[in-house]
């Protein structure tokens, strides 16, 4: 029973903390660039404002346009229940392993691209085509890097991988683990539209990818999409934190362990958010035609990770 409570709490935590995480990254970035910056709570205010506004939908659109925000939000809520955020072996682990998680992520991306094409605006189509190019290159690297970990743990189940790493802490410094981390980090930048690949803070037509697809959205639809994007960032950062530095994840379910696990999770995600902000301050945006090069490097890292943990026993 308490396992299911934890599952529910994981979903609530992801939904509640995600906008704060985006605000935190923006705030740290602003401080690093010498600006005062909006408070980390600003995304919550934006969401409240958007939820109160009227949603304008073009008459040219089909049901896909209205359905996508709900599907995107829903798929991320489901993922947050499948990913080990607070406790490692969880009751829903048997429902879906890493393959399910990866393809649920891709389902949201796929529908968002369709929704970008749906109104028939030039920007939407451009954004959708770019997003699909990047997703097609990032997806194999993502799956392969988690497979690199799965081979070491002997299971494709994310909860099992975390539990196994907790039992054998020395393995976190092995070559396979570090290469997989590097690969997953690059994929995270691509999938969540962060700086070297997509600039989240601009609407410049030459560079935008994510922003181009959601240009036609307004009101509660836009709020849901922005919220889902924040949840995606939160889930990716906590996956990076828990798969590679699993300490703090509760192995047994007791109030003390769970509270400590929440504290550790927020701390680890906070550290990753700070390093992400520092990275975004120092890196220039990559030209679009050089993005495949970066993603092929991520794929290579993942391939080497699998090779070093699978081909040599």
């Amino acid at each position: 029973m308490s396992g299911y409570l934890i599952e529910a709490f994981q979903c609530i935590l992801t939904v509640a903390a995600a906008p704060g995480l985006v605000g935190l990254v923006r705030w740290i970035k602003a401080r690093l660039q010498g600006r005062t910056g909006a408070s980390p709570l600003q995304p919550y205010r934006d969401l409240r404002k958007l939820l109160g506004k009227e949603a304008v939908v073009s008459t040219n659109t089909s049901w896909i346009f209205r359905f996508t925000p709900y599907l995107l939000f829903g798929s991320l809520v489901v993922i947050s229940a499948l990913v080990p955020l607070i406790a490692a072996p969880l009751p829903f682990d048997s429902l879906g392993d890493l393959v399910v998680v990866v393809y649920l992520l891709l389902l949201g991306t796929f529908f968002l691209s369709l929704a970008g094409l749906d109104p028939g605006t030039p920007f939407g189509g451009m954004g959708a085509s770019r997003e699909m190019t990047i997703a097609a290159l990032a997806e194999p690297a993502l799956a392969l890097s988690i497979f690199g970990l799965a081979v070491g743990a002997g299971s494709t189940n994310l909860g099992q991988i975390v539990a196994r790493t907790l039992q054998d802490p020395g393995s976190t410094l092995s070559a396979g683990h570090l290469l997989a981390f590097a690969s997953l980090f690059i994929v995270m930048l691509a999938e969540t539209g962060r700086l070297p690949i997509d600039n989240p803070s601009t609407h410049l037509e030459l560079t935008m990818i994510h922003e181009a697809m959601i240009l036609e959205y307004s009101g509660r639809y836009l709020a849901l999409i922005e919220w889902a994007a924040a949840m995606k960032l939160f889930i990716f950062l906590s996956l990076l934190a828990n798969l590679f530095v699993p300490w703090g994840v509760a192995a047994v379910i007791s109030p003390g362990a769970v509270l400590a696990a929440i504290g550790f999770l927020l701390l680890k995600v906070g550290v990753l958010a700070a390093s992400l902000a520092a990275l975004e301050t120092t890196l220039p945006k990559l030209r679009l035609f050089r993005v495949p090069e970066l993603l092929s490097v991520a794929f290579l890292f993942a391939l080497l990770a699998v090779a070093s943990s699978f081909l040599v026993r």
Partner: protein
Amino acid sequence: MSLAVFTQLSTLSCSLVLLMGIAVLWRHSLPAYIDSFARQSFFIVIAILSVAVYARDWELYLVAGIMFALKVVLIPRLLHRARTQIGAELEIKPYVNTEMSVLLAGVLTLLAYAVAQPIVALSDLPTRGSIPLAFAVVFVGLFIIVSRRTALTQIVGFLIMENGIALLAVLATYGVPFIVEIGVFLDVLLGFLVMQVFLYRIRETFDSINVDEMRKLRH
């Protein structure tokens, strides 16, 4: 140093050596190539030192010291000087584009695992897991030589290939006799100096270090 720690350390440093070799394939500027070579040599020094500590072999400390002086300090410095004297040709257009090069490097690494399989199966050394990585460094160095256009990059490719052989010697045998090691180092230094002379000659004759220009020699 315990066995498990040593195995992990050697795999880690050899992976970094391989990555620095592959880094040459995705960078675009000559200074970055030379710096990756220097870093690769530095990680080889670390690999040699870890073997030296584990096997308690004082000769290997000496080899690591010479390696550091020659390949981390001296040769990169000479390469940088040659580059500035020739005039920095930053953008290089390789025969094989970057994405394809990086993916081919992955294929070459898998090939190295396949080729080294019998050696790994025969060996019972704790470093046997890293032997395929050393093979992969040799293959990647060879690939750099055949796929890049400028003479300077081809020299870097040759040096990377030589690094792979040096790494293989340390991993597979825990150090060949010291006199052989010294001979190899001298060979590399002399080979490098000869290549540098060629580099200047090519530059003087063709006003460029692009080896495509040398087709004119055919007539």
